[in-house]
């Protein structure tokens, strides 16, 4: 049996230890209280910017296979979508076209807009058909993942979740990757297109 003094100490120490446990656990879980959503956690875990971007094996709307990181390739503004998405993705397409059009023509020529579908059902044929509906410039490339690449996506800082209804959740960010394969800028989906374009313009040669 514990003495009255021990019980009193116990009554004092236990709440403190319990609070310490939860603060420590939640702090670790959220990367030091900085990442509370799956999206921000995956993004922060990938490391600070600029960082070497993980490569993805892709196939474009013409059926050509290529890699996200290509030596001496163009600057790429990458965003994620899927064709059956009726909510956010159509807005993402128009947003990125607006960003591109807000850039000076010289800068536009140095940038490739790369829309990567996260849905395996989006074949090159479907991407091509969709691209024809968009009033798109020649430097817009639609691509699909060449097979499941969850680890590469995670290393890139992109969290993709397939929901119970078969649709997908993915970040609405724009990732700017330079010809050396470094991710140099990430713009979140709430930034007005003109403001996003100004930030991107500063990074382009």
């Amino acid at each position, binding site marked *: 049996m514990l003495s009255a003094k021990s019980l009193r100490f116990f009554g004092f120490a236990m*709440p403190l230890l319990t609070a310490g446990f939860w603060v420590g656990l939640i702090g670790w879980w959220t990367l030091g209280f900085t990442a509370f*959503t799956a999206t921000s956690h995956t993004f922060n875990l990938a490391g600070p910017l600029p960082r070497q971007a993980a490569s993805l094996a892709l196939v474009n709307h013409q059926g050509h296979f290529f890699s996200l990181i290509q030596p001496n390739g163009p600057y790429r503004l990458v965003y994620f979508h899927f064709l059956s998405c009726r909510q956010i993705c159509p807005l993402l397409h128009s947003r990125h076209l607006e960003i591109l059009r807000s850039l000076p023509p010289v800068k536009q020529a140095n940038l490739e807009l790369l829309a990567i579908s996260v849905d395996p059902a989006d074949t090159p044929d479907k991407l091509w058909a969709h691209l024809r509906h968009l009033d798109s410039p020649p430097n817009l490339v639609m691509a699909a993942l060449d097979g499941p690449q969850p680890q590469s996506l995670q290393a890139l800082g992109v*969290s993709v979740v397939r929901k119970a209804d078969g649709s997908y959740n993915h970040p609405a960010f724009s990732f700017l990757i330079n010809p050396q394969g470094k991710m140099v800028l990430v713009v979140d989906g709430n930034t007005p297109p003109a403001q996003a374009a100004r930030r991107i313009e500063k990074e382009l040669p």
Partner: protein
Amino acid sequence: MSPVQSVSDKRFFRPGWFWAAPLAAVAVSSPPLSPWLQTTMAGHMLVQMPLLLLLGGAWGGRVTLLPAAADPWGLTGLVWFVGTHLFWWIPRSLDLATLQPGWGALMHGSLFAAGWALGQSWARAPFALQGTLAVHLVALLLAMGVIYQGALFVVCQSYPLEQQQEMGGLLFWGAGGLYLLLVVWAGIKLGGKKIG
């Protein structure tokens, strides 16, 4: 002291709940009820999670772990409850619990345990502590309501944006209702007594 005993908090003693509460918690956490509740964000966060806490709370008056002498104000149980509650309200935690069965089971079990901790600590806690905890909960619900309703992006990846916004509205108005109830409860508890 036996771990199973009637505690001094007689108001929370419910002999029938000894078996009924855990069995009901298992039913709420298993198919077909659990997947059905989790089809909507509101069903998950406003029905399933509080139900598990309530069932744990009902059990909490029957099975006690810490003797009153070791936890006179019920602080340990209250802190445990707050910690568990906060952890599962983190969007990333909720996503994992929705998408992965193992995490889901962990969430259900820990919420029942948190309710249990609350059940046996609430009556021991002085009025000021009870009031602080209640205000903390209302503030948390209100803040989450504002975030979910106002965010133009998906905070919880497991649920679509429209469900998130609907959930935000329910939380916001629910927190307002809880605040009114809190004022009434405090009025009744104090019975017109002057504090301080």
